[in-house]
């Protein structure tokens, strides 16, 4: 088993580090390990994401998908290896961490909107507090973004008054307000009722078309097939297989990928 994995490792390495998009590298993970106590959540992760590329990460639960993208903006600290985002390496230096976080937007499964603030204040908080934007300018920006995600009329409401799909779109607008270079999506539709999934996926699709660099952890295979430049399949903390959606869904090579796809499709 171990031999087998290592044997594939070389192949996977060359594959996962080739980038689509413009060809410039935006995110680079080199030999990243992550442990939770004795449990190894990430094992020797090597991956590159190119500028304007959309990478969809799939895999069974517990495979380390979320942990990987949470490492990219330091919500989790990796234990070994290197993570470089747009030329800045994540280290213990808090300035580097802040720098990376400013450049990366994150959308969570549970939305994580601030319930004590209005939709408007949720979105303007980052621009005003981090980028020191004047109030007026921040609010104009927020209204633009709310129009983009098609809920400008909800600006003065509190998150608790919105539907799940609307909340997630506010969360996307909140991240975009920081004008990030990369957007990370951590199972953005998993907590939504079925009828609201589409509105969020549509928003993400438009974002991808606008040229945003995105890493999306999701179980939405339709989205992966349609929008992804590359699909990354993870299991047991490792990257098992990488490929274009076409390759991935039609002629997967790895047994674990085949098993996973047979279970969900």
């Amino acid at each position, binding site marked *: 088993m171990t031999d087998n994995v290592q044997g594939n490792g070389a192949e996977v390495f060359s594959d996962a580090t080739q980038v689509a998009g413009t060809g410039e590298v935006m995110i680079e993970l080199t030999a990243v390990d992550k442990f939770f106590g004795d449990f190894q959540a990430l094992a020797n992760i090597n991956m590159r994401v190119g500028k304007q590329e959309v990478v969809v990460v799939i895999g069974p639960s517990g495979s380390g998908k979320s942990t990987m993208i949470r490492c990219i903006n330091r919500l989790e600290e990796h234990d070994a290896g290197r993570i470089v985002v747009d030329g800045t390496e994540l280290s213990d230096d808090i300035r580097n961490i*802040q720098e990376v976080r*400013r450049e990366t937007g994150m959308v969570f499964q*549970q939305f994580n909107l*601030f319930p*004590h603030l209005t939709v408007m204040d949720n979105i303007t908080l980052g621009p005003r507090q981090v980028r020191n934007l*004047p*109030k007026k300018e921040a609010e104009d920006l927020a209204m633009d973004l709310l129009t983009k995600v098609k809920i400008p009329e909800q600006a*003065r409401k*509190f998150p608790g008054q919105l539907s799940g799909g609307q909340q997630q779109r506010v969360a996307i607008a909140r991240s975009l307000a920081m004008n990030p270079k990369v957007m990370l999506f951590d199972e953005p539709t998993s907590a939504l009722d079925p009828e609201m999934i589409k509105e969020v996926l549509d928003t993400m699709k438009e974002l991808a078309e606008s040229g945003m660099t995105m890493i999306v952890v999701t179980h939405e295979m339709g989205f992966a097939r349609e929008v992804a430049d590359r699909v990354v399949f993870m299991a047991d903390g490792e990257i098992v297989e990488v490929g274009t959606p076409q390759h991935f869904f039609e002629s997967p090579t790895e047994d674990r990928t085949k098993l996973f796809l047979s279970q969900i499709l």
Partner: protein
Amino acid sequence: MTDPQFPMTQTELGAEEPIAIPVAESGPRQKLPPGKWLRRNLFNNWYNSLLTIVIGALLLFVAVRAFSFVFITGRWEPVRANLTLFQIGTFPRDEEWRVVAQVLIWTAALGLGVGAAVAGAKFRALQAGVEYVTDPALDRLKRYWALVLLLLVWLFFADTIGPLLLTVASLALAWGGYAAASRVSGPNVGLLWSVVGVLGVLGFQIVSGFFGLGWLWMGLPIAVAVYALLGRPDTDDVKRQRRIQLIGVLVTFAVLFGVYTAVDSVGVEWDDWEGLQLNLLAAAIAIALSFPLGLLLALARRSSFPALRVMATTYIEIIRGVPLISLLLMAQFFIGFFLNTDTPLSLFTRAIAAMTLFTAAYVAEIVRGGLQAVPKGQMEAGNSIGLPAWKVTQLIVLPQALRAVIPAMVGQFISLFKDTSLLLIIGKLELLGVREIVHGQPDFRGFGIAESLVYVAFVFWAISFTMSRESQRLERKLGVGER
């Protein structure tokens, strides 16, 4: 058994006796005629009827005895004759005008404050596009029925026109302040709060005097107003504006420092504040100081710096294991050993210090509970938009944490207010202490003892009860818009 209120299903299911499950309670609760209500709720079977009769008789007995105690046999002369003593103790009588001024200023501030809260709520409702509903005036009065009752008791006991005039004047000021403030337009509400703050400090200093560090306290609300006034929301150069605001704040403090140094008028010594006035002031000051201290302790206890964490934890656990009385006695006898001041601190200051240090430990634990209740995702969301850790705490975690612990916090403050009666032990003449003096007077020795105790208890109750009710209301109000 064939009561039409209970449908057949009950007996069909084999229930021997219909269990009193309210069946027809869907929809708005219908009002029953009193006879029917009685039969259904109090006399619906033999043992409930028996219970109703026994308890009813007991209640009637207590009510009759209480009535006769209050209105017939009770000897309220000791209270009636010493009403001023109960309110302000042996506060110098030729300085009484200061207390009167304080009451007037603070009631005006109270009216303005409530008005400001209403104006703020109106503004937020307007922005959110929902209609702002005010409670009818009668409902608002009902909320304060305990305080109204207390006021009526005082007016009933008073034998001069003074208290009535003061009551009318302060009610008029409070109402006027409320009416004016509640009409202020949204963006100016912040300034209104500064006015409330200035009046609050002024009310305090009209008694204590305008000297020493007084400029610092008076400067705080004014500086906030100056800072806000110098701000322009649409400015392009945020850095330059911050500089201007900072200069404005510094100038404010400098001017006030000059004024206070020039005036330098000492009022009434803190140790001369007695009676109910002492209880209220001691509680208010200790609350105002223990809240920020407790907040800092709670944050320190969760800090990632081990030294801070250990210090905060040690402090909290030591203080929580010690009775307040022992702290008060320590404050009375040996706080001077630790503090080398030229003039010894007033007993009042030392007592406040003890009560503040004591309450802060409890506040810290309450706040810590609130901090733990904020989901981790909130911090992650804050981090992910690039906020530094302290801003995540200040803008995201604390507002939610504090909102969640309002009831527990107010409970702690009520208990602090009642604990001010312990000042009696260290020789301060607070409300309960005044009672001892009263019964030391030759005229009132040995009678009306129960009556004066009931009076003191009633005063504490009326104030605590109102605080508790207000906290419940605040909790309900802040719940709006929560997820």
